[in-house]
């Protein structure tokens, strides 16, 4: 999803009131978050939610390669069994997910099949609303983690997003999570203002070009300070996606997920009080020529995610990866897939028991050409709320009592 659709999505979701409140009151700097490090209960776990915008094709992510219906439905879009990374003799991972496959071999990756909700909606915006609010019948103005935040005391720093705009996910009824400006403005790791200051130092006798090149480093610091203040002081409408245009077409001048996860890791390593982090990766809406593009896009997920999992091992971090819907079982004429329904959720991190969960949906018993979901997404949320955040899931899920068993805790 590009900047404009993400923005529209925020407005469409009906949470702009809460989001505006959050943006005014709780846009934090990284320092604000890091300053909370003394408040943390060291036994408390951390949830990192990874949203894949655009509708990731679940069938070519966790591939039912042993099912003859799979190649029959997708001529030209299937993978040979030789390149599929096997989970067992029935399912395998997309070749782009070699890192996650490594985690699988260490029993650290849980694959939840067929996750969805009743009466699936095929609009990106509406379906993402449903996933984020966890209210399939009539998505409201609060997100499931925003409602958790309400129950957890409402300190915005407990739930933060490195996306430019607050996702509805983190909007509560009485509180809202914080957005932390970062992204494209952040400097490569370890670079200090002092270092930039030295690079910016004017040199007597330097050529005009060299002097200008040095001065740019000073400007850079000023812009950065200004952007930080600007982002703190503006309304939601103005805190739009500040990725430069160059960054949206192919996934970023530096991969945004890299940066987001690096910021999360910094906060966690610094012992920040934050319990929930929301990060995202776009670009999964592949209506045509989907196979190679999806594999490349999954690799863009795989590498940073695997590195993050390794870096966070032993720190009580659980990662959940989801998308707003899967894709149609049958490929379209352009070797792509149109919007579908149920898809796969990945869970990984400390306390996650590796393996496959849930009933894989049938590829032939379809609902209007789409998979029938076998696991309600609220069952997955309930497990995360109970076992990662240590809270009563019913309070955040409008009384929902189901829970995916066995994966966590």
């Amino acid at each position: 999803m590009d900047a404009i659709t993400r923005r529209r999505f925020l407005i469409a979701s009906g949470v702009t009131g809460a989001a505006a409140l959050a943006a005014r009151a709780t846009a934090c700097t990284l320092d604000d978050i890091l300053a909370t490090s003394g408040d943390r209960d060291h036994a408390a776990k951390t949830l990192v939610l990874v949203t894949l915008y655009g509708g990731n094709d679940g069938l070519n992510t966790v591939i039912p390669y042993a099912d003859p219906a799979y190649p029959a439905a997708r001529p030209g879009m299937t993978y040979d069994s030789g390149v599929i990374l096997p989970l067992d003799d029935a399912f395998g991972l997309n070749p782009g997910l070699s890192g996650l496959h490594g985690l699988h071999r260490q029993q650290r990756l849980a694959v939840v099949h067929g996750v969805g909700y009743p009466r699936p909606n095929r609009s990106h915006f509406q379906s993402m609303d449903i996933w984020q609010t966890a209210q399939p019948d009539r998505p409201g103005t609060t997100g499931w983690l925003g409602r958790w935040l309400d129950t957890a005391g409402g300190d915005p720093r407990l739930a933060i997003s490195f996306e430019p705009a607050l996702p509805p996910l983190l909007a509560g009824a009485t509180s809202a999570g914080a957005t932390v400006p970062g992204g494209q403005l952040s400097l490569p790791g370890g670079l200090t203002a002092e270092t930039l200051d030295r690079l910016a130092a004017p040199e007597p006798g330097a050529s005009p070009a060299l002097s200008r090149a040095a001065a740019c480093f000073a400007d850079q610091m000023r812009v950065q300070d200004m952007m930080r203040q600007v982002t703190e002081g503006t309304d939601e409408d103005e805190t739009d996606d500040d990725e430069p245009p160059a960054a949206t077409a192919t996934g970023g001048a530096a991969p945004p997920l890299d940066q987001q996860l690096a910021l999360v890791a910094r906060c966690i390593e610094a012992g920040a009080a934050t319990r929930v982090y929301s990060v995202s990766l776009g670009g999964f809406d592949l209506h045509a020529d989907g196979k190679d593009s999806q594999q490349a896009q999954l690799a863009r997920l795989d590498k940073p995610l695997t590195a993050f999992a390794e870096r966070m091992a032993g720190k009580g971090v659980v990662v959940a990866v989801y998308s707003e819907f899967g894709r149609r079982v049958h490929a379209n004429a352009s070797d792509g897939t149109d919007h579908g329904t149920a898809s796969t959720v990945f869970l990984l991190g400390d306390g996650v028991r590796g393996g496959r969960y849930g009933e894989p949906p049938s590829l032939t018993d379809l609902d209007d050409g789409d998979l029938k979901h076998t696991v309600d997404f609220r069952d997955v949320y309930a497990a995360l709320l109970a076992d990662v955040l240590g809270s009563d899931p019913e309070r955040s899920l409008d009384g929902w009592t189901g829970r995916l068993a066995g994966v966590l805790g």
Partner: protein
Amino acid sequence: MTDRRALSHLLRRLTFGPTSAEVDTAARAGYDATLTGLLRPVPLPSPPDLGADPLARLGPGAGREQRQQARRIQKEQVTALTRWWLARMTGPVAAEKLTLFWHGHWATSARKVRSAQLMLAQQQTLRRYGPGDTGPLVRAMLRDPALILWLDGQRNTRRAPNENLARELMELFTLGLGAFTEEDVKAGARVLTGWQVDRATGVVTLNAGRHDNRPVALLGRTGTWDADAYADRLVGHEAHLPFLARRLWVRYAAAPGPSPAATARIVAAGRNTTAMLEAVCRDPEFAATRGQLVKQPVEWLVGALRQLGVDPARLEEQQQRRLLTSLRGLGQVPLLPPSVGGWPVGAAWLTTATTLARLRTAQTLTQLAPATADRLTGTDRVEALGDLLVVDAWTSGTRQALESTKDPRRLLTLGLASPEYAVH
């Protein structure tokens, strides 16, 4: 003994960034032999296999989805060509930097041409004729399908002349402003009417029915012209060689352009681009341009790849994509110039946005060469870094920044992003 700095200056300007070993070799060989060796003709490379042009093969009844698919394939082919070219740029001689010079000069964008095959054909034309006499080059370019499509030559007909190509031909490619009039533009456009490109075959033909063969007054001579006669008149014009001398100086020596005396000396080398380039490098004013020229992003990136020993052709798919994304962030992607005017020169490249992009890309580059970075340890690491990147001297500010940096990878990142490495 030849001044080592003079040779590193020469190598930095004629190639995409020399390695320290290349400077050593050059210092032993001396300035003359090095210059001659760098400018020696190289064989035309065998072109990459890009596959067939998907847009050219589309039938008139193609649907929206087919068109979208063809466009996607076409973009992938352009990317493949760009990668192939980037890999070629890492070679040790002056040839591909001259190809980039001419590409920036006859700045044609794949965005409008929409054919990797035609972009490649133009590139090969620039390689074939670029080093020599500009006469055959201009003649060939007037028949170049990509240039014709780019500047609407296809639409330039007897009944509806289109002046785009004729104007840019004189203003940007051969003479420069001031050497021609609006009447010359109109007349030139009429001379160039009727050329048609067959996208499927890449063949350009003159359609007699669309061509205006009536006599015109053009650049002081009235008569019946054809494209070759027009080309010959342009390269024979008194403004042509000074114009070209300036263009070469701006990209190879210093952005303010050559002094009148230097211009006269370069023009005296005669109508041959290699000879003129040699004259630039032998000019008494050339040495003083050291430290004055802002690297174009492609020069910066390819130079770094060479010095770090990274062969872009051997990188994984994702890493190759990342390099192109970096170039986009830095503001210069080959085959996609922003306009027919080409890319900016000089301080236009020095902005806060490009500074941040350079920092980020420097980090990416360091990740591609961890072993090289990890050798930058010990007390002489700042000197070793200067040696690796062939930076003659660090400013005191940069030196302080580098000396306070212990981590070798961070050190390399800083060196690559430093002001001294952006300007050469």
